[in-house]
């Protein structure tokens, strides 16, 4: 197998997003993995996308918690 293509953060971000909507090709997966291994900022981005999904899901399931009682 050839070396995975080197991605910019911009390309990696696009793949991280698409991964949540459709399957990536094996080449895309390899390139993304390779990029993430090296790039802390993109690992932050990936985590934040996960969080955004959880937030959206929670928003649809129960909504926000009731406002806290003033202490």
């Amino acid at each position, binding site marked *: 197998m050839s070396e995975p293509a080197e991605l910019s953060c911009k390309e990696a971000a696009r793949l991280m*997003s698409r991964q949540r909507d459709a399957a990536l090709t094996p080449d895309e997966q390899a390139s993304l993995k390779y990029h993430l291994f090296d790039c802390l900022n993109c690992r932050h981005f990936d985590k934040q996308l996960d969080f955004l999904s959880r937030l959206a899901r929670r928003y649809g399931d129960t909504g926000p918690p009731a406002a806290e009682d003033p202490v």
Partner: protein
Amino acid sequence: MAGLKEINPPDRIAALYAEVETHRSYLLRFAIARLRDREQAEEVVQEALLAALEGVGGFAGQSSLRTWLTSILKFKIIDFQRRIIGERAQLAAAPEENDGADPEWMERLYDASGHWNPAFGEWANPDGALEQKQFFDVFERCMDKLPAATARVFFQREVMGIDTGDICKEEAISASNCWVMLHRARLALRECLDRNWFQGGG
């Protein structure tokens, strides 16, 4: 089964009415995502809330109130679409607004070589944010800033959990167009939450 109306004192009913009301803005977004028309969506939400309040005894408390209200709304939307299709031969597609059309905006997130610029750090305690009502207010305001079609696609995908293929079909757009819109929504929401919550320290 005795309805809550019989077993609950009036102030409990009033509290429940108030609680139902807190879900209105979510339900409205849900209806807009399906109907693409704000006025129609408002009408359907109103019908759904009235039906919910009449049938409050049917809320068994096994699911969340929001889930229960959403299920009523779904029936009302289907009902409404049937009625509309009867009235008009075909639903005119909502005019597609130009999608905020600021191609520059996404470019500015990166430097010339495509690296994040400025770089950003990890969010502090995102799970804690999920326990705060104000954070959800920020989230709603951030969704409101998206172009309408982008917001609708994001809502269907991430809030309602609809399959991307089905969304594209419904919106009559190509899969790649759909991905672009979703990516744009996520980037914009990330920025907006970052700026309005996480950077401010919550």
